[in-house]
């Protein structure tokens, strides 16, 4: 009898739990009700998402997630970070364990279709390269026949490097380790000849290596890696919010608005600025948010340029130039659609 009771209670609870999960409804409502955003991040890439020595999350992806929280709640700190491996990240999003994935994830056709995901506007244009010890004396990627390569499993990186060696008719051996930290440890201890990943990440790994000066990036980019925040299929409103949050970061830079001057810009006569900051109401409401959403993003997180320079720019350990990540009017690829 006792066993039976336990069984019945278990079944009822299970049914209720699964039912509530299945009917949780629109993501925005769920996020608001919960009171904080759950963002999937990498957790191991300096400059993109990593806790600093005080345990505060820092990075370009982290700031993108903070911008979404600022847009939704008007408070960039109402956020919970879930560190995910490359293999875990997509299932975690599909299973609704996270609201948005800001984890240097490459936009691909398969991921948008067969995996049932939507990629928002790119927040970092990257490309895949190779990090190699200077001691090996390798100058070109054509000298890599027979190399052992450290690579993260479940990434586009893993497929690109296989394609690269196949196309050039060279042999290689992969060492795939799921945890980013373990992988880079193995590489810097000499387990592999090469470490391959997105160039920004290689720079990040090198920045925290025991002896950064001993390693160099090979002068070759073997793939395009547009990295963007990801959401699930089937919730267009939530997709719009994430997509336009990234564009708001870009638009703020274009309009010359930053976290220092945003309160002054409220008095700006320019109608584009007024619409953007919600002085002329309407844009926020269309997204289902407060009209001050963009103001909150810029005030609390900054514009794209500020985020870039603070996390990965020339004055950081990564020292990356803006390059293709510059604004369109400066010859880059970053281009926000009109805010109207």
């Amino acid at each position: 009898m006792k066993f039976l009771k336990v069984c019945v209670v278990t079944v009822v609870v299970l049914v209720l739990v699964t039912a509530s999960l299945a009917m949780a409804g629109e993501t925005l409502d769920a996020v608001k009700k919960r009171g904080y955003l759950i963002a999937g991040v990498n957790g191991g890439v300096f400059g993109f998402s990593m806790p600093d020595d005080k345990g505060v999350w820092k990075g370009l992806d982290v700031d993108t997630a903070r911008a979404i929280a600022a847009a939704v709640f008007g408070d960039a700190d109402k956020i919970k970070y879930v560190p995910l491996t490359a293999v875990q990240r997509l299932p975690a999003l599909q299973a609704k364990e996270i609201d948005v994935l800001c984890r240097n994830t490459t936009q691909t056709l398969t991921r948008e279709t067969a995996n049932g995901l939507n990629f928002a506007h790119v927040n970092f244009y990257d490309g895949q390269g190779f990090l190699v010890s200077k001691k090996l004396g390798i100058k070109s990627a054509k000298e890599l026949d027979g190399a052992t390569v450290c690579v993260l499993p479940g990434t586009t990186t893993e497929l690109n490097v296989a394609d690269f060696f196949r196309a050039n008719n060279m042999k290689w051996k992969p060492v795939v380790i799921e945890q980013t930290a373990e992988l880079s440890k193995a590489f810097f201890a000499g387990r592999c000849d090469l470490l391959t990943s997105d160039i920004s990440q290689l720079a990040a790994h090198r920045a925290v290596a025991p002896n950064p000066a001993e390693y160099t990036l090979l002068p070759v980019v073997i793939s395009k890696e547009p990295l963007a925040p990801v959401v699930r299929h089937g919730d267009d409103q939530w997709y719009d919010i994430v997509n336009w949050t990234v564009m708001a970061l870009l638009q703020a830079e274009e309009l010359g608005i930053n976290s220092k001057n945003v309160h002054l810009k409220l008095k700006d006569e320019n109608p584009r600025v007024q619409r953007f900051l919600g002085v002329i109401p309407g844009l926020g409401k269309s997204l289902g948010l407060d009209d001050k959403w963009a103001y909150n993003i810029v005030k609390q997180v900054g514009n794209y340029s500020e985020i870039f320079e603070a996390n990965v720019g020339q004055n950081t350990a990564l020292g990356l130039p803006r390059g293709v990540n510059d604004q369109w009017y400066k010859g880059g690829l970053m281009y926000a659609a009109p805010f109207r």
Partner: protein
Amino acid sequence: MAQEGTNSTEITTPAKIPFWHDPTKRAIIYQVVVLLIVGMLGYYLFTNTQANLKRQAIATGFGFFSKEASFEIGESPIPYSAADTYARALLVGVLNTLKVSFIGIILTVILGTFIGIARLSTNWLVAKLAGIYIEVMQDIPVLLQLFFWYSISYEILPSPRQALNPFAGVFLTNRGLIFAVPEAHPAHVYMALAFLVGCVAVWALSRWAKKRQAKTGQPFPVFLVSIAILLGLPVAAWLLGGAPLKMDVPVLRGFNFQGGLTLSPEFVALLLGLVLYTAAFVAEIVRAGIQAISRGQVEAAMSMGLKPGQVLRLVILPQALRVIIPPLTSQMMNLTKNSTLAVAIGFPDFVSVANTTINQTGQAIEGVGMIMVVYLFFSLSTSAFMNWYNKRTALVER
């Protein structure tokens, strides 16, 4: 009281008992209800999953099996390249898991038995060392042990260009343990055949020797003769095949050694970690099995004039095995299941390949389903084999 009880059964016939007072019927009803609920829950979960997958437009099914995998796998017992299909990639994973589990189980049983017997040694130092080994290995989580062995392999060993060369033809590097193997030659096939013939001959010999001893009481040195047969036949085949001596010696070319046989650091670390960890548990099982035999039996056997080896082989082991085998089976399965920790140190076992497949195709449900089926199959086969062996060795009760 007893009388009242018998009275009541006489008075009320079974037909008049309402079904909710009949424990048998009640039990059946409970079972049916539970079955229904479980069935409905299963149906609900299935349809709900289907609906959710459809709503999010996630592809389902096993169609990806025949697609090109386009990722590389570090080591494989069969030829594999990124141009092969997912089905072949997954097969490579299964074979890698099988390889590490099979070799691991054999080494674990051997090492565990040695340590278990050493623990019972009358030599104080040997017994204490075995005890320390068991305590230390059992108490450190196996994942930490794997990390330890793996980091030793790449932190301490040099790069291929400064490889350690302890013997001719053997190289120790952070790319693995590389050693020379005999170059392929037809004589090797004959040697393998000769070995198989030797196995059959040894089996026949031991049967004949047993029969003869039962009939005449004459013992036959089966062990020594068996070794002579098992070694002698392949050597004879090797000599007849032209005694090929050419070795495939590894040579440093480019980044790494070419030729010879390479055991990767991932494989060695995984094997070491699993064997050393599980052997500690096996040692305790062996010790318990031996201690389960009463001291009197050993004394009786000794007083009959049996030598210590015979006491172990004829009296202790046959009885100890029935205590040892069931828990030993579960340790074997533990080793197989723990081999999934390979993902942490980069050995491409089945879980590692399946994880990559899940991520590249997005078919998580199918992938996890496959992982469960494969490990269930491994566990059930191990258990079926050991149950058969257990029945064979079980003491015939008289």
